[in-house]
Structure formats: structure tokens, C-alpha cells
């Protein structure tokens, strides 16, 4: 009897988890009048009008493009900075290495809001406000330490003798790193990219404060659906559904290595 009880429990649990997402999907397929008038478990007369509006109105779809642009920049910058840093922490001993390594993670412990004012001041001085790179760089403050920690864990799992064997074989460092080492920590890089993506994608405070119109993220657009006529429920729900999609796609690719990523590569 036990396994069946367990199965039922799991099904209930997943139903509970999926309920809000389903509800958002449900609302996104209905018109505002319909949503406010009656309670329905499923859309009786599904309409894609909300989605059409997002895909055709530049005010909406540019939000997605902006978000994707700075998130992609952030992931690229984080990885290209963190890969060499993590290699150094994993392979070399240098003065204060342990303290510096811990300090990196301590950075993660401060709430993003703390850095808002300095960022605003700094970026406006350099004329970076309302650019994609501004948000990407600001997010790096949080994603780079995380990336260094995760990658260091994965790299330390590769025996040092592999590096030495490559040098004995006559490999130079860049060639060894790209052709031998990187393929060995492929899954780690995938997981790291996912964690950077996830942070940057859902972070709202910095992204909204540092942008205006040109680089406005989708989440900021969503907060501005409150008009004179009240909330546009259907549109908001459709935008919400579309926000989940990229994350779900990325998770699909790194699903096998997620647990190791949460353990910072140290399983």
C-alpha cells in the first residue's frame, strides 16, 4: 500500500505546485471581461488576443528583447571572467587565496538594494544609464562570485594530473584549457550559465532602476500595466507565461546537473 500512498501524495503535491501556473495560463487565454465576470476552471472561449498584443506591440516585445539581451551579456561576461578565476582558485595557491575565495561569496550575502545608489551614481557619471551593458555589469556583482564558486567545485573534481599530462604532452595553456579542460567541465559550465541566467532574469530592482526606456526589462513593463481602466489581467498573465518559458527551456538542458550546481559543484 505504501508506494500507492506515496504516488497519490506526489500527485497532490504537484497539483498544488502547478495550480498557480495553470491559473495564470488559464487567465492569459481569456478576455478581461470574462475574467472579472465568472469563475471558470478552464477558458470556455479561449482567445490568443493577449499573446498577439505582446508579440505585435513594440512596447511589450522590446521588453523581452531587452531582458534577453542583458541576460545573455551577463552570462557571457560572468563565464568568461569566472572560468579563469575559478581555475586559479582550484589549481594555484597564492597569498590570501582562501580569504579572497570566501570574500567572493560574502559579496553574495548583501541585498542588491544596498548597491543601488552607488551604481546609479557611477553609471550616470559614465553615461551608462539605460543601456543593456549597465544592467549586465550590475548583475555581474552577484553572478560572478556564484559562477566562480560553482566552477571551482567542478574544476577541483578534475585531477590535477590531467593538467600536468597535457603540459608533458606539450600543450600550451590556452590550447589545453579550451580543448581538454573545458570539455571536462561542460556540465559545470552549463549549470553555471543556468544560475547566472536565473539570477539575472528574475532580478527586478537593479534592472528597473538602471534603465529607462531603451533597455527597459520585461518585468518593468509588466509593472506598468495598471492604467486608468484598472489592471489588464489577461495581458499580465500572458506576459507572465512568456516569462517562464525561457527559464523552463534552460532548466531542460541542465536538468541532470542541477543538484550538483546547487551544491556549488561539490558533490
Amino acid at each position: 500500500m505504501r508506494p500507492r500512498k506515496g504516488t497519490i501524495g506526489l500527485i497532490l503535491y504537484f497539483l498544488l505546485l502547478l495550480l498557480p501556473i495553470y491559473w495564470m495560463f488559464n487567465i492569459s487565454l481569456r478576455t478581461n471581461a470574462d475574467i472579472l465576470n465568472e469563475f471558470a476552471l478552464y477558458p470556455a472561449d479561449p482567445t490568443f488576443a493577449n499573446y498577439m498584443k505582446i508579440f505585435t506591440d513594440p512596447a511589450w516585445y522590446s521588453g523581452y528583447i531587452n531582458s534577453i539581451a542583458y541576460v545573455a551579456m551577463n552570462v557571457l561576461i560572468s563565464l568568461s571572467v569566472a572560468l579563469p578565476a575559478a581555475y586559479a582558485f582550484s589549481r594555484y595557491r597564492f597569498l590570501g587565496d582562501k580569504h579572497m575565495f570566501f570574500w567572493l561569496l560574502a559579496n553574495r550575502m548583501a541585498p542588491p538594494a544596498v548597491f543601488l545608489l552607488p551604481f546609479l551614481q557611477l553609471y550616470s557619471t559614465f553615461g551608462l544609464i539605460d543601456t543593456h551593458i549597465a544592467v549586465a555589469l550590475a548583475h555581474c556583482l552577484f553572478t560572478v562570485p556564484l559562477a566562480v564558486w560553482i566552477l571551482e567545485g567542478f574544476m577541483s573534481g578534475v585531477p590535477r594530473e590531467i593538467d600536468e599530462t597535457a603540459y608533458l604532452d606539450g600543450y600550451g595553456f590556452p590550447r589545453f584549457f579550451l580543448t581538454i579542460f573545458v570539455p571536462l567541465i561542460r556540465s559545470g559550465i552549463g549549470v553555471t550559465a543556468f544560475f547566472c541566467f536565473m539570477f539575472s532574469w528574475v532580478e527586478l530592482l537593479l534592472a528597473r532602476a538602471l534603465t529607462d526606456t531603451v533597455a527597459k526589462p520585461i518585468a518593468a513593463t509588466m509593472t506598468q500595466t495598471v492604467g486608468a481602466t484598472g489592471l489588464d489581467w489577461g495581458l499580465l498573465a500572458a506576459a507572465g507565461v512568456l516569462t517562464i518559458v525561457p527559464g523552463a527551456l534552460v532548466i531542460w538542458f541542465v536538468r541532470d546537473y542541477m543538484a550538483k550546481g546547487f551544491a556549488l559543484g561539490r558533490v
Partner: protein
Amino acid sequence: MSLKLENVTTTVGGETHIDNISLELSPGTLHVLIGPTLAGKTSLMRLMAGLDKPSTGRVLVDGEDVTGVSVRLRSVAMVYQQFINYPSFTVYDNIASSLRLTRLSNHEIDLKVREVAITMRIDPLLDRRPAELSGGQQQRTAIARALVKDARLLLLDEPLANLDYKLREELRVELQELFKRRETIVVYATTEPSEALMLGGAAVVLDEGRKLQSGPTLEVFQNPASVAVANIFSDPPMNMIDGEIVDGEARLGEDIRLPLDGHLGQLSPGPYRFGVRAGHLSVVSSPGHEFRFGATVDFAEVSGSETFIHIRHGGAAWVVQEQGVHSFDLGQPIDVFLDAARLFVFADSGRLVAAPAPAGGGTPR
């Protein structure tokens, strides 16, 4: 090529790993580094390879100082105790990887890879990845990688230690054949005296980062310069007992009395330490083993077709190695027979003063 280490010392964090070692290695000879774990075998090899830099001292190749020269610019190949191959490459690519960095054409590389794969008997596995191979096959791949390079210095750091007994025996014989045909300096590290003896060549006995003795392997085995060397170069460690020479006879332990014949003849009276290898003791009397003394059995262990009987005589714990499987009761009193011609005699300081004449024929133990 000749490789010379001049007074090399390495200290890591205040700890001395290699203590003032000088060595000269000549080509075409197999050099066996023998020593217990933590003796500094790996540290010494890393110095030879150029993976580490000595704290003081110099490394010379053909008389040229290469102490600080990067490992990439030297002609070195190394096989580790762990099976180290590139996991993302196939066996073929693993073997070919060092050749691809040279100016050889693809055709030449292919010929060389296939040739060495046949020698190491991994030719049917060339398309597999290391993770799909057994431990023995992985180490064969690692050795093939090292051999294909034709490096002037070939280092093998306990290459067979992580393999099971049968595979070890098999690979040991093959390696021995391979080394004979090479003009390289081969350095082979091992903890096992039997492996060192089988490989022959020249031996360097290491302990706690110091060089204790070096010379032709068999000679070192037959004339261990000190008690420490005798212990390292005997498996199980050499049985030691304090004694003295008085009134024209040797008195060992409590009641062993031996006449001063043969190599014991020229010894002057005084205190000594006497050593005998486990294989030169017996629980049965036979020609040669005629000196009987009483002992009690601590315990006996059977290993393969041999029995190691741990005995106690007076205060000393000894081990007797006996062919065949025998069983003994705990605390059982037995008679042990000793061959006086096989006794090593060390001075109180631990220095060898008399060694038995090499046994004609028969495998040394």
C-alpha cells in the same frame, strides 16, 4: 641524454620533501626508485620531469642546467599511479594527442599510434573512451601515451600499484620487455622489493626524502648498506635481533649460539645487530637450516601459496616465510631453523658490516 640531479632539496611549507639528493641517471638503463610511501619517490620524479622546481640544487640534462625550464620544453613522458587519460578523448586521440603537437603528418601519426596500440594490446579499443575501459586497459592506454612520445626521459610512478594481482604480473613482464628495447632513461618507482628485483637495472633506495643507497639493484639487495635499507628492500621487513660476538661465537637474542664460520669469520668481538630475511627462516629442518631455536606463534597468515608465520623469540617479533599453506595455533611453541650463512650483520650504528655471499641460483628473497 644523461640526467643529473645536483644536491636537490625541496621544502614545502617548512617540511622537507627531498633532502639533498644527488643522482646521475644514464640512458638505456632502468632506474628503480624504491621506498615506502611518503619516501619522496613522486616528489623526486616531479623534479626530474620539471613539474616542480627544487628549492635548492640543480637539474642538468646533458650537462645543461634545466632547473627552471618549463616541462613543455623538455622531452619527458610520465605515467601516474592513478590512470590518467583525457576522459573526453577516445583511446586513439589520447595516444595521438602529443604527436598532434609535433610536425608529423597524419599518416605518420596513424602508423605510430597503431604500432604502440598493438604493443600494449589495446588495438581493438581505439575507438572507446577511457571511461569505457577496465582499469588495466586504462593504464595500458596511459603507458601507450607515454611510449608513443619517444621521450628521452620516461617516468613511471608506481604504474601497477592500482591494478589487481594478475594484471600486475602480466603488465610487469611486458614492461620489462619494452624497457629493454629503449634508449631512453626509464625511471620506475615502486614500494615492492620483488618488483624492483624483477625489473633489475639500477636501484635508488629512498626514505623520508633522503637517498639511502644506490647501485645495481641486485647488489643493493644483497648488500643493504644499513638496517633501514634492509627493511625497505625486504618484504616482509628483515628480521632483526640484537646480539654480540664473544668468545669466538655469535650470541643472538636469548639462546641462539652460532659459530663464526664463513662471512662471520672476520668479525671482531662486540655488540651487533643481526638480520635475516623471512625466507631464510624455516619451521622445518633441512640442510643449511640447522640452527634450531624455540619460539611461540603470534599468528600465521596465508598469502597465495605461502604462509607468513609471525613468531616471538625473547622480546623480538619475527616473521618466517614458508612455502605452502600451513596452520598454527596461537601461542603454540615451535622450533625455528636458521641458516647462519644467510645472516646479515649490522654495526650498532646500523651500518652493514657483513653480508652473506650471494646464493648461487635460486631466486633471491
